[in-house]
């Protein structure tokens, strides 16, 4: 009897998983052909994710599904009779599409695509100008691993660096663009605040307010960065887990530590909800 109950429980869980979908869903159980060639359209920009796919003959339309994580629950975000759909995303994630005709569906979900950034799971530390001189103030973002370095070194082309505009306070610090201020020999970076507690996306530069000179507060957890590249594309980075603290090695020095996410899709501004 006990064995039977456990078996029933497992069966129930399998059925539930099948209903909500996963990375390799067992399928919605219909008999229509699956949607093929799901891709992100070239018109995607900011948090408007344009999905395109190949037509399935003799169907009424398509349902578009989204989920934040590979093991998360699929949520239907839209329906269309066309072979393209634009999702205004508030967070990065996975997409899948299935066709429908009446109450019949594709036999399976399409293959998935995702808008996830590279999550660089590492804490980086930079220091303002009042910390000891050998401590790095500059930082270069990279899709795989960032590089702290000496912003005052003309050979180090920083994206941002920590700077104290004032002469007092051990938690007063700013982030300067690599092309701004005394160490302006680096690369341009524009910084923006998160919109409320939405950490999953930012505006597309220059929409909204972006700064080359960004004062950090000890309450800050997230800063969005726009990195213009030659040719006109902009890569977006989200600094998160920010922590601003006094440098014990200096009476006025300040430590800025953070992690970051690097959105490798040019001009796309969605990230995870990490903060």
């Amino acid at each position: 009897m006990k064995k039977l109950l456990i078996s029933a429980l497992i069966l129930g869980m399998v059925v539930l998983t099948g209903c909500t979908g996963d990375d390799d869903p067992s399928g919605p159980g219909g008999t229509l052909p699956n949607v093929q060639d799901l891709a992100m359209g070239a018109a995607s920009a900011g948090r408007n994710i344009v999905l395109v796919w190949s037509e399935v003959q003799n169907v009424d339309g398509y349902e578009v599904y989204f989920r934040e994580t590979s093991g998360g629950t699929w949520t239907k975000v839209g329906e269309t009779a066309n072979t393209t759909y634009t999702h205004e995303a508030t967070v990065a994630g996975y997409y899948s599409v299935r066709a429908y005709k009446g109450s019949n569906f594709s036999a399976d979900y399409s293959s998935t695509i995702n808008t996830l950034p590279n999550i660089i799971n590492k804490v980086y530390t930079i220091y303002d100008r009042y910390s000891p001189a050998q401590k790095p103030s500059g930082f270069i973002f990279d899709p795989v691993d960032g590089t702290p370095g000496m912003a005052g070194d003309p050979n180090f082309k920083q994206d941002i660096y920590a700077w104290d505009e004032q002469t007092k306070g051990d938690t007063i610090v700013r982030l300067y663009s690599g092309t701004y201020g005394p160490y302006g020999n680096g690369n341009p970076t524009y910084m923006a605040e998160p919109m409320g507690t939405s950490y999953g996306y930012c505006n597309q530069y220059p929409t909204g307010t972006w700064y080359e000179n960004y004062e950090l507060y000890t309450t800050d957890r997230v800063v969005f960065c726009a990195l213009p590249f030659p040719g006109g594309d902009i890569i977006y980075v989200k600094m998160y887990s920010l922590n601003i603290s006094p440098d014990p090695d200096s009476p006025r020095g300040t430590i800025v530590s953070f992690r970051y996410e690097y959105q490798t899709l040019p001009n796309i501004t969605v990230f995870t909800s990490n903060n």
Partner: protein
Amino acid sequence: MLHAILGSLALISQPLILQNPDTLVTPSTGLPAGVAGAVSRAAALEGGVWGIGVVDLRSGETSTRNASRSFRVDVPSLPLAACGIELSNTGELPLDSMIARNERFWEKLHWAQQGGRGVCAAVIWSIRETRIARWLSERGFSGTAVHGVDLDLPTPILLEPNTITVENAISFLGIFYGSIDQRSVRRIGDNPPLSQANRETLGVANTLYGWFDETGSWRHIFIIVRKPSGEDYGIVILTENLCCPGKADQALSIIWDALKN
């Protein structure tokens, strides 16, 4: 020597904006008779090299000594304020625009006026040094140069010296005065960081806007005084090789004695 009328200002190449629209209805009587002598006495003080200027901001009448001599400036907040006001008036960089997170342009100009070296440097970086140089050139302020602010860096950056002249400083005060009807402009020059001695000299009844620049070698004072009786004056005291800071205060006192009544 007293330049008797506004027309003489035309001899100075810098254009001036010296009329306050709020007070156009009252004809100006110009500078008081004793100002020329006061300027001469101040410029003759021992213990330093002097550049002295006084302007009746409503008529444009000026009295100056060493008007075109360039003096070094440590924190060039006055030319930056004038440049910022003109860039704002043309719409290029409005004073209310956010040039840093949660900081408007006029706020940065004000904190520079208060003596913030890092803030003044940030204003230069935000406007761009080349844009400031172009503005100075286009407006004919050839005796003024703005290159930056010496900062406490591990590896000091060598800067070309900043400079200013009496005649340019009078024009900068005129630019400020010409837009004084704007609240953000008034805020830039508000609460001037004057010494206690200067404040006692100028009294509490007058409205003051001003800038101040001091090192071990000089003390420069730039003030607009708006008297309750309706007169509006600009005073410029530039110094070099100053024996003691109190000498500059003494020069201001001499000038003010000639203006206050």
